[in-house]
Structure formats: C-alpha cells, structure tokens
C-alpha cells in the first residue's frame, strides 16, 4: 500500500474531481460504442425499474446502481460465458452486462415465470447460468466465498476460467470476506474480487464504519495483487480488470479490483434518501452526477469525432423503444405456478 495509492483514493473520493471526459486515446472504437450502449441500456433499465417500483408495479425492493454502470460493463469486457460471476443485492448491471436482455430482467423483477430466475427470485436473486452469471443474493457478502469455490473448481477442472465476486465496501466488513481473501490466496484460486466502493453501506458513510476509505489495504494484507481505479471511467475499469483477469487466467491466483464510485439513488428504491444517509447531502449527489460514467464517455467520444449527438439521439430512442417493449411484454407474462413453491426446494 503505497502513498501514491492513498493519494489516488483521496482524490477519487472527492466528488469535485473527475468531471471531465475520460481518456480514451488508443481504444478500439467498436469497444467504446459498445460500452456506451451497454451503460445507457443498463441506466435506462434501472430508471424504468425505479418508476415501476414507485408506481407500485414492482412489489419487492429494488437496489439501483445508477451511476455505477461503468463497473459491470468494464469488468465484463474481459469475461466469457464460461466464467463464473457472482453478484449481490445491487446486481442488475452485473447480469445485464453479461446478457443484455431487459425483458427477462423485467419479468424477473415483476415475479413472472419468464424471468431470469423463473420468477422465483425478483430483483435481489438473479441467475443466468448460460451467460456465466451464477447468482446474486441480498445477504451482504453471501456470495464472495462461493466465488472462491467456483474458482477452486475452475482450477481443479484444469480450465483457465475464472470466477468474479462483485461486492461493496459494506460487504468488506463481513468476516467471511477476509477468510475468502486468505483462502483464495492460499489456494491460488483464479478469482477476481471486485469491490464497488461507493462509500456507503445503506445509510452509513464509510468513515463511520472503517478507519480508511481504501479497501485495497486488505488485498495488501493478504498478498493479493490489486488495482485501484476510477469506477466511473469505463476504460480505466476495463484496463485494470483485464490485467488482473489475465493474471488469474495464467494460473497466478486471485486479483483484487477496487473501484471508487457512487450511487445516485438512495440505498433502496427510487428516492434520493438524503435524510436517511448519514453524511449524504444533495450537494454530494449533484457533484457525483457530474462524474457520470455515461456522459464522460460520450463526451470523450464526441470530442474524438467517433460519436455524434445525432447517433446518441438515435441510440436513446432505440433503447427507449426496446425497453418499453420489454416492459410491456413482461407485464403481460404469467406468474409461476403455485406448485413452484414446493417444487423448487429440492431437485426433482
């Protein structure tokens, strides 16, 4: 843990910084367009969920990651459907970045049998094995050790597949995560720990929960190679993730990726929750909105002349249509059959 890193964390957690377009020189144009589309799609899907929840169509809680889209998109850029990806309560983006199918996500959140988890999971329990998404659950830190096991399996199976565990700065406080870091290290398991450090666990700012904002200090303690990056810069995320993933695929054990970011909505559902968050002000939220991963990429691309306001307009209207069609379709789908409650307990 060197001073450079500490300075970088201090810089990144200040919401006044990083409002400018991101640095994209040398990046593949198609990749960039893809990132932009993905991030916009995810954003719009979550905004649709916010409205659906507000208006009572969605019955269960939704944890929205609006503002954090660059992370899943950046990380997924180096993943294949043979990898094993685990999420948590705020995982819409993690799944959509692997399988961009808003319809099945909507269906799931609405509790419909056509959803990703056949309507048995809702927003907080998502699964899409074929795309490599092995599951997300709302018990904070619940899947981190599972990802280590999936990585151990990959190694025993003599493949170069890896596992990914997405979790937050709050999850970092659960003991099992520390056990998992050590276990992964001693087993040389190919797992990437991705910490989305959005500075909050529910209403509690990180300064009320930990003596330091920097999560990578636990990678250091466990002798796990780490990278620290601006979580609202998709290219930075992609590059950092890619380097660690390559290292894991090459049989060199786990990696740890810390990404500083912020969620625009409150902890759960569609509200700001300024009153609920200890140390959360509207000022901060506004400032963080200026560090929008979507705008910062789009502006950079326009500056470079590889993207235009026109194209963006088209993209937006395309996405709007796609998403509203998906929503309508999901709304009309059926609920699971009553028998599912008993039939899914054990394999039959």
């Amino acid at each position, binding site marked *: 843990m060197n001073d450079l890193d500490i300075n970088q964390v201090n810089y990144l957690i200040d919401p006044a910084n990083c409002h400018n377009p991101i640095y994209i020189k040398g990046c593949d144009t198609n990749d960039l367009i893809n990132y932009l589309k993905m991030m916009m799609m995810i954003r719009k899907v979550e905004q649709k969920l916010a409205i659906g929840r507000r208006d009572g169509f969605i019955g269960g*809680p939704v944890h929205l990651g609006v503002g954090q889209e660059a992370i899943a998109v950046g990380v997924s850029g180096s993943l294949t459907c043979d990898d094993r990806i685990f999420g948590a309560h705020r995982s819409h983006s993690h799944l959509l970045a692997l399988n961009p199918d808003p319809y099945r996500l909507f269906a799931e959140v609405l509790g419909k049998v056509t959803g990703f988890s056949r309507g048995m999971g809702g927003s907080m329990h998502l699964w899409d094995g074929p795309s490599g998404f092995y599951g997300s659950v709302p018990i904070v830190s619940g899947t981190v050790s599972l990802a280590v096991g999936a990585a151990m399996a990959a190694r025993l199976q003599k493949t170069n597949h890896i596992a990914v565990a997405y979790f937050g700065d709050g999850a970092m*406080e659960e*003991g099992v995560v520390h056990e998992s870091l050590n276990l992964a290290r001693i087993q040389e398991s190919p797992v990437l720990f991705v910490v989305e450090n959005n500075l909050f666990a529910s*209403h*509690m700012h990180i300064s009320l929960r930990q003596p330091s904002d920097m999560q990578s200090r636990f990678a250091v303690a466990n002798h796990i190679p780490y990278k620290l990056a601006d979580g609202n810069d998709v290219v930075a995320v992609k590059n950092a993730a890619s380097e660690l993933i390559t290292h894991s695929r090459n049989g060199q054990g786990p990696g740890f990726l810390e990404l500083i970011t912020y969620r625009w909505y409150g902890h759960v559902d569609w509200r700001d929750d300024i009153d*609920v968050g*200890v140390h959360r002000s509207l000022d901060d939220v506004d400032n963080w909105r200026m560090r929008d991963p979507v705008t910062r990429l789009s502006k950079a691309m326009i500056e470079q002349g590889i993207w235009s306001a026109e194209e963006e307009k088209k993209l937006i209207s395309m996405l709007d249509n796609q998403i509203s069609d998906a929503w309508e379709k999901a709304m009309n789908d059926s609920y699971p059959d009553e028998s599912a*409650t008993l039939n899914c307990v054990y394999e039959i």
Partner: protein
Amino acid sequence: MILKVKKQNYGTAICSAFEYLLEKYPEVFVIGQGLWSPWYVGNSMTDLDKKFGVERIIDTPVSESACTGAAVGASLSGMRPILVHPRMDFMLYAMDAVVNQAAKWSHMFGGQAHPAVTIRSIINRGGEQGAQHSQALHSWFAHVPGLRVVMPSTVKDARDLLIASVLCNDPVIYIDDRWLYEQEDDLPPIEELSLAAQGPACLRKGADITLVGSGFSTYLANKAAEILGKQAVSVEVIDIRILNPFDASLIIESVERTGVLLVVDLGWRNSGFAAEVIARVTENVGTDVLKCRPRRITLPDAPAPTSRALESRYYTSTDEIINTVKELLS
C-alpha cells in the same frame, strides 16, 4: 389506585421500553445496524440516538458476528446491552456468539458469570423480499439450552417483556415481528417483571378448542377466535410468549378441558416449535383426553418465494385457521 393508560402501538411500545431502560439504567446501551437511520426498524426506535447520544446508541459496521460477540462481552462486564438485528436472517453470521458463547457461558463456568445480553431479532418478511429476508428461526433458538426466547404478540408484552428481557441476567432472544407493529392498545404504566416468572398466557378463555400461537400467529389466532366466537365456537387462545425454557402446563391444562389442540406457528413445519407443543401435550395428557388428532398449521417446508403470486399463499391466514378449527370440531 388509578392507572394512567396510554394509547400505543406495538412499535411505539417497544420504543417506550427502550426509553424507559435507557433513562433508568446507565448500564443499558444499544448496538446494531440501522440505529442511526430513521426508517430501519419502523417506529420502534425513533430518535433514540438523538435522545441518548451516539455513544449509547451505536450503529455499526456490517459485522454481525463481531457485534454480537461484543454485546456478549460487554454484558459480562457489568453492562446490559441490547443488540438489534434488524432482520433475523442476518444472524446466521452470528450463531457462534449466540449458541457457543452466550448460551453456554454460565454453564461452562459453574454459574459464576452471566451474559446479561438481550438480542432483539426482528422477523421482517413479506413484500416479495424472498428466501434470505423472510426467516423466523424461533424454533432454532428454542432448541438451545441457556437462551431465553421471548416472542411478544401483544402491545403490552412488546414493551414489558423487552424490559424484563433486558433486566434478566441470562441471554435473551427477543423476537418481534414487523407484521405486529400496527396493533394498538391502551397501556397501563410500565411494570418491571421477572422474566423467569413469565410463561404462556391465556388471551381468551374458551371451551371447545385450545388454539396455541406465538408472535404473529397468536395475533392471527386471536382474530380467528373472535370471528369464531360470533359463530358460537368457543376458542381458548394461548400465547406461548416464552419458548425457552418452555413451560407447557397452561396448554396441557387447557387441552385437558377442551380435548382439542390446534397449534399455529409461522416457522417451518419439520422439527419446528409446533411439534414441541404437540409433543408436550400428548406426552402429558391421558390417551383418552384428545377428542381428535392434534393439528398444526405452519409454513410449508419451503423457503419463502418472492413472486407475489406465490408469496400470498405461502403464509397462513385467519381463514385457514377458522376452517381448520371447524374441521377439527366437526
């Protein structure tokens, strides 16, 4: 003597117990997740942090295991901590501190030290939250000697049993259910009860059937009994209140009179507390007492589904209780 009577609901009754304890007993403090947030635990802890300070109302990192252990440790050092788990499901991370440490502490050291800790563990389900956010594990805690397990179903018990739990020198699992929070009642002034002296209570006298519940299932049972009362079915309702150590004598006595037993429990069926009630009754009443087979209504042996279509059928209802009573009496 005129008792001052105060209108409260289940949530505010809990809050008033906290205030009473924090005002009167400097050794009481509260620790848990969500204590500095206005909405975490409904209206049951409103503004405690503001009234009593963040030194005594401690919001914590997301570390259920260490926080539970810390509460146990503080309780061995002259304090009376109240540990709050806003959802019982999160306690799966804290089982060692509860079961291996707190429950056994007195025993391991020959009764020389007592963890006077109260663990408030909230059942918070429904609302399509799913399998990991819906559990009621009272049957588990009832199985562990050394723990006292308290499940208040009434507004008065919500307040007075919390106070009794905190003043008790043994580790107590105090379980409240968010579905009970809207209940209202006129409460007399607080009375400090000895928890060890508490046991099941008869909430409603009756002659035809003994209906037994705990927490929210008592609430449903009571409602069912009321409706059945109007239909000339006389239902005796017994609220278990204290699941561990479990004194079944009131229930046994009641069944000896009614000859019919129905237990309602909002936990899973297999190896759950409803079975204990049936066992305690059948191993204690004569073989000629029961007019029909004892019966239990429980959750199905399945995790809680999320989809509203399934969730609504997963939990029992007053109707199911009423129908079962009628079936048993026919």
